[in-house]
């Protein structure tokens, strides 16, 4: 990770072609250097953060005066940094009989801040949690004394998490866990605090900035979706081809324990929705036998969405994995113990993330924990079953090979789609689809759960969420369309998004049939579409043309009264 002075040098770089994001930074301590660290870190993440910084100690004034600069600035993201030191200062001034109310009062304040901001602005709010200070007034007894500062502090951090689960546009930045990793002596330098009101040491600034940028990047759809794993000396100790299945190191003995715990971590990632793939130089049957037969293997064949086990070079294998999974290289992480393989992959595929795994496998986990590679801003039921989805897709591909005629194949799938407007049940998934889909995304507007909830209540907006299931299984919610009343005759397609998992299934025909019927029944004449090109959505460049829309001054128009339903093999569920 870069040190602060290197981040500062970034500020002189050219930010011109980077994604511009307006950020408001409000702190109750001095944040000038944090601002520089954020902008410098943003540069390396491809972001041009336009940061407006409030004078320090001005959080309440800026927030509760809705005529303040904060509201004039109209930020995309508000970062609120209330420090533990100021919280302790508040506690110090309380009457002793008020000590036990500290957490509740602070949470109330945060609630007021959040509600006031989000009532006036369409913005996401990033709130820093509170790194611990133990004032040692109660000693260990603080853990059972509600009035102790440490008790209140931990309660507040916990209550904040609960609060965040109920408020979709809040994102907590866990700087408390950074302090757990690096220690308070690293995080906080008293002399700097006394002379400058800065509570983050210069050395810790890059860590705090990086955690914050992780959230901002994820909000702008830059996050990891897939983990590609080597096998020998990465997933287990030893070389299975040489040592034999009974001699690989895994299980509870010696270094085997490190690999077992490492596999549990990977399994948890899979359950969270990270797709696992294996890329290893081995004889396939020999390597797979470990997954099938070794009693101590935590990862099983069913956990892996794609295997590339052969003696070809890893760059080609990873390219093939990429084409099977159909996701960007920048959303992939490759783990391999061999520096040669790592360098080769890194040099040939610059977008992929290749962590410099430590030499000693005992250190793998602690090192990977510190990288925070798998940031996300959403989690839904779909995530937990993602691997199965990709495996089923592979099965469908195999079946498709049996049919020479595409229509016969599609018919054989017995596809059903349920269509619903957005509601509280599908909102998390719609938000996620809007964040995750880069290719089949006509206008690349990202919606958060908060913005979707607002949209549900707007009379001029009409939403359609589509699921798709077939005889191989349920793909879940895989597409949505948002229509906006432009005039009494025209419905504008505000966005049309589909998961690439269900490409070439006729889903877009089914979706168009659905919205044309809606437009007709509601008395509109025209559907108006627009394609906004990005670096990633070339796939849908001709989307509207292919669906029979006619070009019209940069837009695409379809007369719904002259429309004939498009042939498709999906039935309404």
């Amino acid at each position: 990770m870069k040190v602060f002075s290197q981040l500062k040098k970034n500020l002189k770089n050219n930010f011109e072609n980077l994604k511009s994001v307006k950020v408001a930074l409000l702190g109750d301590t001095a944040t000038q250097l944090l601002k520089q660290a954020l902008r410098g870190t943003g540069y390396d993440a491809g972001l041009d953060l336009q940061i407006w910084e409030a004078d320090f100690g001005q959080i309440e004034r800026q927030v509760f005066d809705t005529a303040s600069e904060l509201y004039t600035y109209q930020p995309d993201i508000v970062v609120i940094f209330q420090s533990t030191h100021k919280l302790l200062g508040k506690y110090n001034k309380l009457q002793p009989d008020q000590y036990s109310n500290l957490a509740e009062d602070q949470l109330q304040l945060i609630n007021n801040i959040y509600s006031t901001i989000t009532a006036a602005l369409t913005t996401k709010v990033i709130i820093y949690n509170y790194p611990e200070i133990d004032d040692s007034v109660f000693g260990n007894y603080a853990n059972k004394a509600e009035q102790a500062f440490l008790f209140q502090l931990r309660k507040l951090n916990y209550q904040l998490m609960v609060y965040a689960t109920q408020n979709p546009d809040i994102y907590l930045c866990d700087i408390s866990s950074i302090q757990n990793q690096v220690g308070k002596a690293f995080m906080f330098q008293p002399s700097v605090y006394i002379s400058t009101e800065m509570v983050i040491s210069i050395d810790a600034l890059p860590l705090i900035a990086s955690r914050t940028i992780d959230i901002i990047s994820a909000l702008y759809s830059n996050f990891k979706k897939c983990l590609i794993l080597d096998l020998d000396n990465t997933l287990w100790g030893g070389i299975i081809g040489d040592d034999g299945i009974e001699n690989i190191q895994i299980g509870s003995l010696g270094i085997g324990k490190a690999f077992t715990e490492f596999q549990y971590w990977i399994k948890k990632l899979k359950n969270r929705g990270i797709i696992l793939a294996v890329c290893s130089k081995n004889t396939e049957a020999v390597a797979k036998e470990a997954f099938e037969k070794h009693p101590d293997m935590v990862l099983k064949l069913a956990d892996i969405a794609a295997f590339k086990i052969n003696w070809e070079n890893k760059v080609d294998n990873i390219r093939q994995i990429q084409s099977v999974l159909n996701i960007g290289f920048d959303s992939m992480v490759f783990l391999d113990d061999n520096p040669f393989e790592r360098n080769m992959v890194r040099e040939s595929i610059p977008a992929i993330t290749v962590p410099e795994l430590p030499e000693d496998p005992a250190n793998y986990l602690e090192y990977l924990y510190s990288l925070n590679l798998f940031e996300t801003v959403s989690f839904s039921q779909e995530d937990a079953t993602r691997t199965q989805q990709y495996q089923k897709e592979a099965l469908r591909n195999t079946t498709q090979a049996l049919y020479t005629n595409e229509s016969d194949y599609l018919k054989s799938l017995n596809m059903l789609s349920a269509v619903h407007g957005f509601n509280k049940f599908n909102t998390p998934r719609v938000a996620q689809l809007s964040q995750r889909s880069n290719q089949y995304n006509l206008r690349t507007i990202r919606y958060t759960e908060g913005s979707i909830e607002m949209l549900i209540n707007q009379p001029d907006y009409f939403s359609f969420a589509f699921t798709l299931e077939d005889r191989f299984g349920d793909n879940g919610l895989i597409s949505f369309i948002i229509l906006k009343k432009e005039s009494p005759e025209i419905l504008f397609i505000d966005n049309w998004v589909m998961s690439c998992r269900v490409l070439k299934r006729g889903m877009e025909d089914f979706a168009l049939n659905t919205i044309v019927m809606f437009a007709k029944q509601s008395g509109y004449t025209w559907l108006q579409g627009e394609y906004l090109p990005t670096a990633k959505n070339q796939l849908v460049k001709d989307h509207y043309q292919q669906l029979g829309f006619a070009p019209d001054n940069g837009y695409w128009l379809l007369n719904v009264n002259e429309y004939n339903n498009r042939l498709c093999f999906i039935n309404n569920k």
Partner: protein
Amino acid sequence: MEKPEILAIINTIFIDVLDNDDIVLTYDTTANDVEDWDSLNHIQLVVAIEKKFKVRFTTQEIQSWDNVGSIVNSVVAKLN
């Protein structure tokens, strides 16, 4: 370590932190003489000097400095 040597090292730290190759420090140089030597950069200079010489200054020391010479003196006192 002798004073001139310490001054030279501090000079390189200033050049690096303030990103300005033209800085030439003397014992009498004050914050007014160096472009960008403001309170914000001061903290980074202090931390960089502490790191380089593996010393820690007290808050009072930092606040008592009035020119580069007094920084050098503090370093000398810590190292000996």
